[in-house]
């Protein structure tokens, strides 16, 4: 069992009887996290995606609570004071504010855009109201982290917006996922620029994974996606059906207008 494809498939099949969440529950670790695959006993940065999947399928509050607690306790290593000092003083090669932290891919490493975005989506979905104390704090810090790590022209890549003073290029899927996490926030310049960049890039993109995530993000912001959906149906190559995660993302994107967009989470 690989975590990301399993979560995406379960979300794509959520209205089907065969969407059995047990495979996900069986893989949850005692601390509430999930490993990246069945034999991985370390916590994955996609635990947020797993929690969002559980919430979307509307089951098992205990497992969801454990996962949410794990997310609230986990943070990027740059948030710890010696590293905060280092990134403020001797290591400024990457433009980042260590006070604005999110979630890492792996324990003991820095915050990055995709795990932070999925963690935010999961926490917002888990706690739609009455967010106080630690919940509100972590969501705010995570939102700030995404805003801090954006590329100067708009959009996001893995999480290095500027390195050695040079702006780095955004990536389509990271931008889409970050925008999904920020939906509901006031539409500031960053979000406007990022949406414009994403719309433009989606119009040119011929890669199914990135195009699928663009559709999910643009749809969540109520921007037109019908033309993109039509093109997505034509760019999926036969060999891509071997890539389960891509297939599931494509299904979610093609179906988002009819079955609903699972990544359109209220603020």
């Amino acid at each position, binding site marked *: 069992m690989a975590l990301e494809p399993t979560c995406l498939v379960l979300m794509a099949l959520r209205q089907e009887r065969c969407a059995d969440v047990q495979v996900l529950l069986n893989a949850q670790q005692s601390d509430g996290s999930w490993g990246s695959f069945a034999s991985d006993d370390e916590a994955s940065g996609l635990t947020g995606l797993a929690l969002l999947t559980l919430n979307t399928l509307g089951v098992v509050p205990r497992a969801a609570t454990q996962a949410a607690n794990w997310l609230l306790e986990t943070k990027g290593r740059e948030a710890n004071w010696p590293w905060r000092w280092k990134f403020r003083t001797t290591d400024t090669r990457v433009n980042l504010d260590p006070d604005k932290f999110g979630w*890492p891919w792996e324990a003991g490493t820095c915050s990055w855009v995709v795990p932070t975005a999925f963690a935010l989506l999961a926490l917002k979905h888990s706690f739609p109201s009455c967010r106080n104390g630690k919940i509100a704090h972590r969501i705010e810090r995570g939102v700030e982290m995404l805003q801090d790590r954006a590329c100067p022209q708009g959009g996001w890549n893995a999480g290095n917006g500027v390195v050695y003073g040079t702006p780095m290029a955004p990536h389509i899927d990271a931008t889409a996922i970050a925008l999904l996490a920020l939906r509901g926030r006031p539409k500031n310049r960053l979000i406007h620029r990022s949406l414009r960049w994403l719309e433009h890039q989606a119009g040119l993109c011929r890669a199914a994974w990135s195009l699928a995530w663009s559709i999910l993000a643009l749809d969540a912001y109520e921007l037109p996606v019908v033309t993109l959906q039509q093109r997505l149906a034509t760019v999926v190559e036969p060999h891509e059906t071997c890539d389960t995660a891509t297939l599931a993302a494509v299904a979610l994107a093609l179906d988002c207008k009819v079955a609903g967009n699972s990544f359109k989470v209220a603020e």
Partner: protein
Amino acid sequence: MIRIAAHAGSLGFAARAANSLPFLLPRYDQDRRPARSRVAILPATEYSGMLSDVLSEGLKLFDLNVAGKSVLLKPNLVDYIPGAAINTHLLLIVAAAECFRRFGAKQVIVAEGPGHQRDTRLVLRATGLEQHLNEQRIPFVDLNRDDVAKVPLRADYSRLKHLWLPRTVLEADFIVSMPKVKTHHWSGVTLSMKNMFGVVPGVKYGWPKNLLHWRGIQQSIVDLVATVPIHFIIADAIVCMEGNGPLAGTARRLDRIVLSDDPVAADATCARLMGLAPERIPHISATATFMGNSSRDLIDYLAEAPHVPDRRFDLVPGFHYLYAD
């Protein structure tokens, strides 16, 4: 200005010290250095259909035996940035595949796991490599999403102990590292050994593979190449990158392809072609103690000898200590 220069100099000294200290004590399982290593520096001024012939003649110098073997070509496919010389050129990759097939390989696969760009298929498609591979019926494997197995490391500089590695890599008989010769803003250079970061799967370690940075890039490179054998190197040094590599630097021509059966010798040679001192690059100097040969005295140059460039490659501040005197 003096304060800035002193600060930069201090940073360079600190960087050098920080990079060297972990390698003071040997932490490898076995000294596997060959008595002598072989490198061929081939002139090549353009990416064209002629590369197959150039490469074929170069490979013949090594008497490689790949008959009946599964060959894995590991190029450097980082991202797609129009006009930027960041990836191993697709014509060199295709030429290599053709050559190994002609030499009797049972199977030739191209495989990569980009460290920043999660959509490997996008890079493949946008660079045009996918079309060429499809036309030649050369399979591609996304190492970021392959099945994986837990492998104990054969050196212990990073203290990682083990890495999850893709089955496609573990099952290959003959692994060819095909780097793009570039400077690198975290490791100084990215050559055949740093290129192997691309076999570390994103499905486990994320994008980027940040754990390798936290455990020490130099140390992680050494542990990785001590564990995953590089049987041959075909380095794309026709159009290289200098400055703020591996993505935001500027193109720099060397008009060469560098072949070798020893990654340490290959990287030492490439470093010299860049105007750098290989003994100052920690992962080259460390692997030269147990894996291969970096000294010119222990390398047989089968074609050209390495020349000192008219102008050494630009490096980001903090790595100027890598320049050869």
